[in-house]
């Protein structure tokens, strides 16, 4: 259908599909159901095609380096404050809560281990991911959406640029690089927040706290001799999250219809879809990684 064509996700060389049922013919219920299912499968397929193209374009010329740097700035550097802040407070509250629990076992000296493990494996990636989904995913959708409705996407096409190459590839690459980086920063901020609480309220000396942190990091062993397995977990996740956030934002942005109102819809959808997808995928990655590292 031409509709899909205009959205720019179809491989350019394919002729338009001619067997699509035109909805004006008012198909029967089952056909309509089929149609809905087909459309859903199709949009999922489009999503993966978009991802494939975006990554593929990273390896061929022309490459829009200035756009990549600009996106790394707006996705990464500008997210720094919120990531630092959320990490810091999460670490503090984590230390506070676990001190209560650990006290009943007389094990408050393990606070560092607990904070480090939770931050690096789970909370760091997920929190950074959710923050970036809210701040960056919505921004991407709004920007590309308004470019779509003001015909700037068509203009790019007309003036000789594949919009995916120019707009999607830099955003996806920037997210793939910056979300893991933000996650590491988030982890550090959290562990640092934990150290403040444990020395101020729980009475654990800072040196002991940090020693337990490093014990925890070393506890699960190393991969390639130097890389703690915890880090692998903690970095695979944000890498995947970066891909999810940027692609969902680009996808909804590019598919925007219906003027300025449509831009709002695309933005909201992006944040909701990306956040849910992120949490679901997080679960499955965790399960897979646990299975892999347990063996």
């Amino acid at each position, binding site marked *: 259908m*031409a509709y899909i064509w*205009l959205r720019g996700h179809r491989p350019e060389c394919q*002729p338009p599909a001619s067997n699509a049922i*035109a909805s004006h013919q008012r198909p029967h219920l089952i056909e309509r159901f089929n149609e809905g299912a087909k459309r859903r499968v199709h949009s999922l397929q489009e999503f993966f095609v978009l991802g494939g193209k975006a990554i593929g374009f990273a390896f061929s010329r022309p490459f829009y380096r200035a756009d990549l740097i600009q996106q790394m700035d707006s996705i990464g550097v500008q997210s720094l404050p919120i990531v630092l802040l959320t990490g810091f407070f999460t670490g503090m509250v984590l230390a506070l809560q676990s001190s209560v629990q650990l006290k009943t076992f007389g094990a408050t000296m393990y606070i560092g281990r607990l904070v480090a493990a939770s931050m690096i494996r789970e909370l760091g990636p997920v929190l950074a991911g959710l923050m970036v989904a809210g701040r960056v995913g919505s921004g991407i959708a709004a920007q590309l959406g308004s470019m779509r409705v003001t015909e*700037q996407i*068509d203009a*790019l096409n*007309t*003036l*000789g640029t594949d919009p995916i190459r120019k707009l999607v590839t830099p955003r996806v690459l920037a997210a793939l690089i910056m979300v893991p980086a933000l996650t590491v920063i988030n982890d550090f901020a959290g562990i640092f927040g934990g150290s403040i609480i444990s020395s101020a309220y729980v009475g654990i000396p800072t040196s002991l706290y940090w020693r337990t942190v490093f014990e925890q990091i070393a506890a699960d062993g190393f991969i390639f001799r130097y890389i703690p397995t915890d880090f692998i977990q903690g970095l695979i996740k944000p890498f995947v999250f970066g891909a999810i956030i940027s692609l969902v934002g680009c996808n909804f942005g590019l598919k925007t219809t219906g003027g300025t109102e449509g831009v709002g819809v695309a933005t909201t959808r992006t944040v909701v879809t990306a956040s849910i997808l992120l949490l679901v995928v997080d679960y499955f990655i965790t399960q897979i990684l646990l299975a892999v590292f347990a063996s």
Partner: protein
Amino acid sequence: MTDNPEGRRGSDDRRQAPTDGPVAPNTPIRRPSDDLRVRAAIRNELATDRPIEPGELPALVNERTAENVIALDHVSLAFDEPILSDVSFTALAGETIVVAGESGTGKSTILKLLLRLLVPDKGTVFIDDEEITELNFPDALKVRQKMGMVFQGAALFDSMTVFENIAYPLREHTTLDEDEIEARVREKLSFVDLDPDRVMEQLPSDLSGGMRKRVGVARGMANNPKIMLYDEPTSGLDPLTTATITHLIIKLQRELAVTSVVVTHDIRSAFRMASKIAVLAEKRIVFFGTPEEMSASDDKYLRDFLGGF
């Protein structure tokens, strides 16, 4: 703007203007900006409002020798519902085809078909006798280089300056060096009667609607395309700016002999620039002919359509 390289013209203007006070020696002679001059000229033209002689404006096209530059051949297209069904028309080299019709009838869709941003469900689109319907992306790009498109809302890239906007197609499509690009950008800005030094570094958001449209025209023609497409170039503009833009389109077709397709609501400017008018209604082209044929027609729909303006 204050420095005047061709001082002669400026001082002539000055001499003719009796209300101006004496010019202090050594002060650079100011001449009204290009913008104002053009507007004044158009205001004059509007004031006299002389009738347009048939065939005066469009470059005269010899129907026998001119080749088809644009052809739509039995094109049908449906989105959620059918938009165009069995639409055909051709444009000969140098002609200006005006596509008129109520909103939502698929006028912009026709332009997007010509640019191969859309692909018809049925039928074929030819540009320069080349079928563009089945082209892959790189080949489609080559065809698009022959065309300059002026989008309805100008569609300027709002993160780039005016200069970068106009330089964009040059950077993408040509191997011009920076100096040549700057020279070309200046040339195009002057062509659309904007002062390069004043607007080049501005962002599109700093410009008025009419100026944005003109930058859009400059960007569209930056590559020196042989085909220009305009999507409602005058909609939403005040009468004076409308006249400026119409003037500009006519200037382009006259001085550069480009083949154009203009989508418009504005039947008055349509009559001023059209070689042929195509009226789109009910998914089809219900009329295709010269402005004279159109005004001579006693078809009820056409009369209503003309009366509506």
